[in-house]
C-alpha cells in the first residue's frame, strides 16, 4: 500500500463538492524502481557530512602539533576509516556520473546570442575536467608537483 502524500498535494484552490480520498505517494518511492538511484544520490549527502567532520578533525590535528598529526595519521590508517573512504569514493563517482548525465539538459537553449554546445560535448568536457583535476591532484599528493 502506498504511503500517504501531503494531504494538500494537488488539492484545488476551491474544494469541490465531492468528498475525495486523500492523495498517496508513488508506490515505488523511495527505494523501488528508478527511485532507488535518486534516493541513494540524495543520501550520499550524509557521507559528505561525515567526511567534512573528518576533514575538520585532520585540520585541527595539523594545527595542534606533530604528536596530534601523527596520531590522526595512525587513526586514518585504520581499516574502518579506509573502508569509509572507499565507500565515499564510490558515492562521489556515482553522484558524478549521474550528475554528468543530467547536466546537459539543464542548460538553457541560449543565453543571449550564445548557445551551449551539444549535450555529448558538455558531458565530454565534464569528464575531461574530472579526469584532469584527478590527475593533477594525484600528482600533487604523490609529490610530482611541488
Amino acid at each position, binding site marked *: 500500500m*502506498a504511503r500517504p*502524500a*501531503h494531504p*494538500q*498535494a*494537488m*488539492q*484545488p*484552490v*476551491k474544494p*469541490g463538492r*465531492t*468528498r*475525495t*480520498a*486523500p*492523495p*498517496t*505517494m*508513488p*508506490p*515505488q*518511492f*523511495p527505494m*523501488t*524502481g*528508478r*527511485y532507488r538511484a*535518486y534516493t541513494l544520490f*540524495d543520501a550520499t549527502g550524509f557521507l559528505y557530512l561525515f567526511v567534512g567532520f573528518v576533514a575538520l578533525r585532520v585540520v585541527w590535528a595539523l594545527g595542534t602539533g606533530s604528536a596530534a598529526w601523527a596520531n590522526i595519521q595512525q587513526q586514518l590508517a585504520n581499516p574502518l576509516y579506509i573502508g569509509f573512504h572507499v565507500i565515499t569514493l564510490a558515492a562521489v563517482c556515482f553522484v558524478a556520473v549521474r550528475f554528468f548525465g*543530467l547536466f546537459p*539538459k*539543464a*542548460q*538553457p*537553449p*541560449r*543565453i543571449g546570442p550564445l548557445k551551449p554546445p551539444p549535450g555529448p560535448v558538455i558531458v565530454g568536457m565534464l569528464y575531461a575536467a574530472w579526469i584532469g583535476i584527478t590527475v593533477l591532484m594525484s600528482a600533487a599528493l604523490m609529490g610530482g608537483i611541488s
Partner: protein
Amino acid sequence: MSDPPKKTFVITRFDPDVDEVPKTQSYEIAVDPDWKVLDAVNYIKDEVDGTLSHRWSCRMAVCGSCGMMVNGEPRLTCKDSVSQYGDTVEITPLSNFPVIRDLVVEMDGFMDKFKKVKPWIIRAKELAAEDGPVRQSPEELEEFKQFSMCINCMLCYSACPVVSNEPEFLGPAAIALGHRYNVDSRDEGASERNAIFRGEGTVFSCSFANECSEVCPKNVDPAAAVNQAKFNAVIDWATGLVLPSGEKE
C-alpha cells in the same frame, strides 16, 4: 483455436458516498493480446462491472485522459499493451492526486497550477493586425517545440516526489509550459513568469529526480524545462539587480 489468455486486473475502487478509504477489487477476464490496458478497463466497465469509473477519450495518446498507475508506474493506458504485463495487473488512480471516484482523480488543483504560470504569449505592446504576423525562424521554434508537445496527462505530477510533499510546488508540466513561453521568441513576459518561478511554488523545490521525464509518454522532458527555468530565473534575478527595471527584455 485456443482460448484467449486470462489476466486478473486488481483495480482500486472508491465510492465517496460509501467508502471511508479506497479498496481493491479483482476482475479476471479473457484478454485479446492486441488490447491496450485501456481496452481491458473498458471491457470491465462495459461487460463486467458498470459501476467502475475511469476517464478516457481519444485512445491514441493525444487527449491525455487515461493516465493511471499500472503496476505502480504512471502510464497512459491507451499506449500500453496488456501483453507487456504479467498475469496480474494492478491499476490504481494517479498518485499524488485526491481521488474523486475509483480511477478518477481531482484535476482542478492541476489546472490551478497551470493558470499561475500565465501560459499565453505576453507582449509589451500588442501589434496591430496590419503589422502582419510576428515571424519566427525554424531555429527559434526548435527551442520550445519539444515543451509544447505536452498533452496534460498529469503522469509527471504522479511520478514527482516533490509534488507528494510540497503542495505549493508548481510541478513539472506547469513549469514546462511557462518555460515554453519564456523561450518563445514572440513572447515578452519572461520576467513576469520568472518572478512566479522564484515565488511560492518555486522551481527551486525541484530536486531533479528526473522521474517526470522518465514517465512522460510524449518525450517532453519536463525535467529539462524545470532545470532550464531555474537557470533563467537566476539570470533574470541577477540581471534585475544591475539593470533598471524594464531594460531586461
